[in-house]
C-alpha cells in the first residue's frame, strides 16, 4: 500500500472538491453535491484501508510539499501516519461521509447547497490537514483553516442575524485561543533549540537562558544551524519532540518558560475545544445547519484541541503546573457545562452543552496524564454525539424546524427509527454499562481517581448530571403527548437520513469493544492503573442509574419544566459578564481612541495640513486676481528679472 499517495489523496481530494465547487458551482449546480459526496467516499475508503493495514512499526512520516525552509526552522508540509492519526482520520472521514450523505436530504430545500457542500469540503480538507500534520506550524495553518470553514458553515444562513453573529463570535473567540497557540508554538520552537544543544555539554552550562542560547546559536554562524544536526535544528516536529524537548526545568531552562509553552499550546485547545472561559462560542454555533453541528461542533473540529494536546503531550507534560491547570480547566468545563445543559430547552443547545461537558472530560484526562483515555473518549464520543446531533436534526426535520423540546413530545410513535437510534446515542452518552461511553468514561474516572480526588468528584457529579439531563431530553422529546403544531404532524425522516443514524448507532455500541476499540485506541495503554477499577465502575453505574431515575421522576408526563434555575438557564451569566467586560473595555478604549483621534488624526494629521494648505492656497489665490493689469505687472517684473539675470 502506498502510504504517501494515500496521505496525498486524503489531504488534497477534499481541497480539489472544494475548489471545483468554488470555481464551477454555477456550472455544476446540483452536481456539486455529488462532487463533495464523492470525495468524502474516497477519503473514507482510504482511511479504512489505512485502519486495516497500518504502516509497519505503527508510525511513518513523509513529506508532501515544501513550505518553509529558514535557518533554524524547517517546516515543510509533511504527514504523519501513526495510530493516533489513523484513528482520528477514520473518525473524521467516517462521520464526514455520513454527514455528507445526511446533508443531501437535510439540505434539500436550501438554495445555497453548492456553497454548503463547498464549505463542507473545505472543512474536510482542513481537518485531514490537522490530522496528518507532522509539526506545529502545519497544524497551525490547518488550525486556522478549520476556523475559517467553521465560520463559513455556522454562518451558512447568514441572512439570519443570529447565525451571522454566532459565526463572528466563534471566529473571534477562536482568535484569542489561536494567539496563545502561536505563542506556545514559538516557545516550543525556541525550547527545541535547547533540547538539541543540551546534548553538547560545552555550550549548555555556559549559558543560562534559552533566548541567549538561541541568540548565540544564530549569531555564531547561520550555516551551523542548517548543517548541524543533519536536517532539523529548531525542531517542531511531533515525532521528534519526545527526544529533543526538554523533559523538565533544569538550570539552563527556567520553569516558567516550559509552563508558558505548555499553557500557550493549551490555549489553542481552549479556543478550539471550547473550554472555560472561551466556551461561549460553541452553544451559539448551533445556529449553523444541524449536520454541521454534528460534524464540526460535536465530533471532529472541537475534538481537534484534544487531539492536538495528545500530540503535544511531551510539551505539556514538561510542566506540572500546566498539567494541573489543564486538568482543572477540563473538570470545571465539564461540570459547568453539565449544569447549564440541565436547564436548556433547545434540543441542539442541550447537546451543545453536553458536548462542552464531554470535551471537558477529555481535556481533564489529558491533564491527568491519561491522554490515551482522552483519545478513546474522543472516538466514542464522536460516534454517539454525531449520532445524537443527526438524530436531533431528524427530530427537527420531522417537527418542521421546531427546536424547543417543550413543543415536541410523543415522537416515539411517529418517528420510531429516530427514537431508537437517539436512545442508543443517549444511553451511550449517559454511560450505560456495556455501551461505548461507559468504557471510555470509566477510563477517565479511573485516571482521575489515581491523580486527584477532587477531580474524581467533579467527574462523578458530571456523569450524574449527564445522565439526568439526557433522560430529561429524551423523555420530554419522545414521550408524553405532542405539545406543538410541528410535533402533531411529525413524520419520519427519509432513508438517506436514517442510514447514517443506524450506522452511527452501531458504532456507538461497538466502539467500546475488542477489535474496534483496539484499532482505534490511539496510544499504547498507559499501564495498569492498579486497583480501584471496581470502585469507579460502581460509582459510574450508580450515578447513571440515579441520574436516569431522577430524570424520569421529574419529567415523566410533564408538559412544562418543573425545575427553574435561572442561574443555569442563563448559563451562569457568563455571556452577560463578557459583554459587560467588553463594554467597559470598549468604552475605555473608545475614549482613548477618540482622544488620539482628536489630537493626532483630526488635529495633527488633518487640521494642521488643512490649515497650512488653506493659508498657502489663499495666499496663492490672491496672486491669481484675474486682473489683466496684475498679470501685466508680473510679466514686466519677470522681464526685468530675466534681463537682470542675463546681463549680470
Amino acid at each position, binding site marked *: 500500500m502506498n502510504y504517501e499517495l494515500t496521505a496525498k489523496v486524503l489531504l488534497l481530494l477534499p481541497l480539489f472538491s472544494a475548489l471545483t465547487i468554488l470555481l464551477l458551482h454555477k456550472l455544476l449546480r446540483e452536481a456539486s453535491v455529488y462532487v463533495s459526496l464523492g470525495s468524502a467516499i474516497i477519503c473514507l475508503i482510504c482511511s479504512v484501508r489505512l485502519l486495516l493495514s497500518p504502516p509497519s512499526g505503527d508510525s511513518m512520516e513523509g513529506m508532501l510539499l515544501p513550505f518553509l525552509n529558514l535557518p533554524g526552522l524547517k517546516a515543510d508540509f509533511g504527514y504523519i501516519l501513526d495510530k493516533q492519526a489513523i484513528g482520528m482520520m477514520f473518525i473524521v472521514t467516517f462521520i464526514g461521509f455520513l454527514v455528507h450523505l445526511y446533508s443531501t436530504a437535510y439540505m434539500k430545500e436550501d438554495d445555497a447547497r453548492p456553497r454548503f457542500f463547498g464549505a463542507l469540503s473545505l472543512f474536510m480538507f482542513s481537518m485531514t490537514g490537522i490530522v496528518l500534520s507532522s509539526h506545529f506550524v502545519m497544524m497551525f495553518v490547518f488550525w486556522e483553516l478549520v476556523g475559517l470553514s467553521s465560520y463559513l458553515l455556522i454562518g451558512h444562513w447568514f441572512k439570519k442575524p443570529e447565525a451571522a453573529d454566532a459565526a463572528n463570535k466563534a471566529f473571534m473567540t477562536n482568535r484569542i485561543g489561536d494567539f496563545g497557540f502561536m505563542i506556545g508554538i514559538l516557545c516550543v520552537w525556541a525550547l527545541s533549540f535547547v533540547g538539541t544543544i543540551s546534548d553538547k555539554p560545552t555550550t549548555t552550562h555556559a549559558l543560562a537562558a534559552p533566548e541567549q542560547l538561541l541568540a548565540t546559536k544564530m549569531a555564531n554562524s547561520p550555516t551551523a544551524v542548517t548543517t548541524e544536526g543533519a536536517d532539523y535544528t529548531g525542531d517542531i516536529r511531533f515525532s521528534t519532540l519526545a527526544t529533543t524537548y526538554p523533559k523538565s526545568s533544569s538550570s539552563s531552562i527556567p520553569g516558567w518558560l516550559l509552563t508558558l509553552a505548555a499553557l500557550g499550546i493549551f490555549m489553542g485547545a481552549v479556543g478550539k475545544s471550547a473550554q472555560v472561559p472561551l466556551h461561549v462560542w460553541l452553544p451559539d454555533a448551533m445556529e449553523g445547519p444541524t449536520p454541521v453541528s454534528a460534524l464540526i461542533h460535536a465530533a471532529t473540529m472541537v475534538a481537534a484541541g484534544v487531539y492536538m494536546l495528545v500530540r503535544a503531550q511531551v510539551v505539556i507534560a514538561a510542566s506540572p503546573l500546566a498539567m494541573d491547570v489543564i486538568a482543572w480547566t477540563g473538570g470545571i468545563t465539564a461540570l459547568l457545562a453539565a449544569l447549564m445543559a440541565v436547564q436548556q430547552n433547545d434540543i441542539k443547545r442541550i447537546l451543545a452543552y453536553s458536548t462542552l461537558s464531554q470535551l471537558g472530560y477529555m481535556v481533564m484526562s489529558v491533564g491527568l496524564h491519561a491522554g490515551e483515555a482522552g483519545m478513546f473518549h474522543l472516538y466514542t464520543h464522536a460516534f454517539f454525539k454525531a449520532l445524537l446531533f443527526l438524530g436531533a436534526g431528524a427530530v427537527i426535520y420531522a417537527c418542521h424546524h421546531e427546536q424547543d423540546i417543550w413543543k415536541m413530545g410523543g415522537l416515539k410513535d411517529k418517528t420510531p427509527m429516530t427514537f431508537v437510534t437517539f436512545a442508543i446515542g443517549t444511553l451511550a452518552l449517559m454511560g450505560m454499562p456495556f455501551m461505548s461511553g461507559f468504557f471510555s468514561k470509566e477510563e477517565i474516572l479511573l485516571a482521575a481517581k489515581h491523580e486527584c480526588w477532587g477531580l474524581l468528584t467533579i467527574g462523578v457529579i458530571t456523569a450524574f448530571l449527564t445522565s439526568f439531563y439526557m433522560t430529561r431530553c429524551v423523555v420530554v422529546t419522545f414521550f408524553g403527548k405532542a405539545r406543538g403544531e410541528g410535533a402533531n404532524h411529525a413524520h419520519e425522516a427519509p432513508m438517506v437520513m436514517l442510514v447514517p443514524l443506524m450506522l452511527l448507532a452501531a458504532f456507538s455500541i461497538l466502539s467500546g469493544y475488542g477489535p474496534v476499540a483496539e484499532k482505534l485506541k490511539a496510544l499504547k495503554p498507559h499501564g495498569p492503573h492498579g486497583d480501584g477499577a471496581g470502585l469507579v465502575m460502581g460509582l459510574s453505574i450508580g450515578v447513571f442509574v440515579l441520574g436516569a431515575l431522577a430524570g424520569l421522576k421529574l419529567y415523566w408526563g410533564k408538559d412544562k419544566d418543573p425545575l427553574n434555575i435561572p442561574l443555569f438557564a442563563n448559563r451562569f451569566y457568563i455571556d452577560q459578564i463578557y459583554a459587560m467586560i467588553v463594554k467597559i473595555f470598549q468604552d475605555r478604549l473608545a475614549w482613548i481612541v477618540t482622544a488620539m483621534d482628536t489630537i493626532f488624526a483630526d488635529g495633527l494629521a488633518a487640521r494642521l495640513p488643512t490649515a497650512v494648505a488653506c493659508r498657502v492656497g489663499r495666499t*496663492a*489665490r490672491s*496672486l*491669481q*486676481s*484675474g*486682473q*489683466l*493689469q496684475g498679470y*501685466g*505687472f508680473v510679466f*514686466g517684473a519677470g*522681464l526685468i528679472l530675466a534681463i537682470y539675470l542675463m546681463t549680470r
Partner: protein
Amino acid sequence: MITLNHYLVVAAMLFAIGLAGVVARRNILTIYMCLEMMLSAANLTLVAFSRFHLHDGLPDYHAQALVFFTITVAAAEVAVGLAIIVALYRARQSVDVTTVTKLQG
C-alpha cells in the same frame, strides 16, 4: 552725433512707456494700443541693428525681413484681437479690464 545707442535708448523708452500703459490703463483698447507700441519699439531695435550691421556696404536685409513679418503678424493679431474686444464688449457692455476677472482663482 547719433549713434546706435541713441536708437536703442529710444526703443527702450518706447517699450517702457508701452509697458507702463499696459499695467496702468484700464481701457482694453488703450492697452492694446500700448501693446502695438511695444511691438514697434522692438521693430525699431531690429531696424537699427540692421543698419549698423552692413553687409557689402548694404544694410542687413534679413533683419528687415523679420520686421516685415512682425508687422504682418501684428496686423493679423490686431484684427483678431479687436474682434475679441468687440465680442467681449457685446457680452459685458464694457471695455474696462478690471471688470473682466473670470480668471480669478
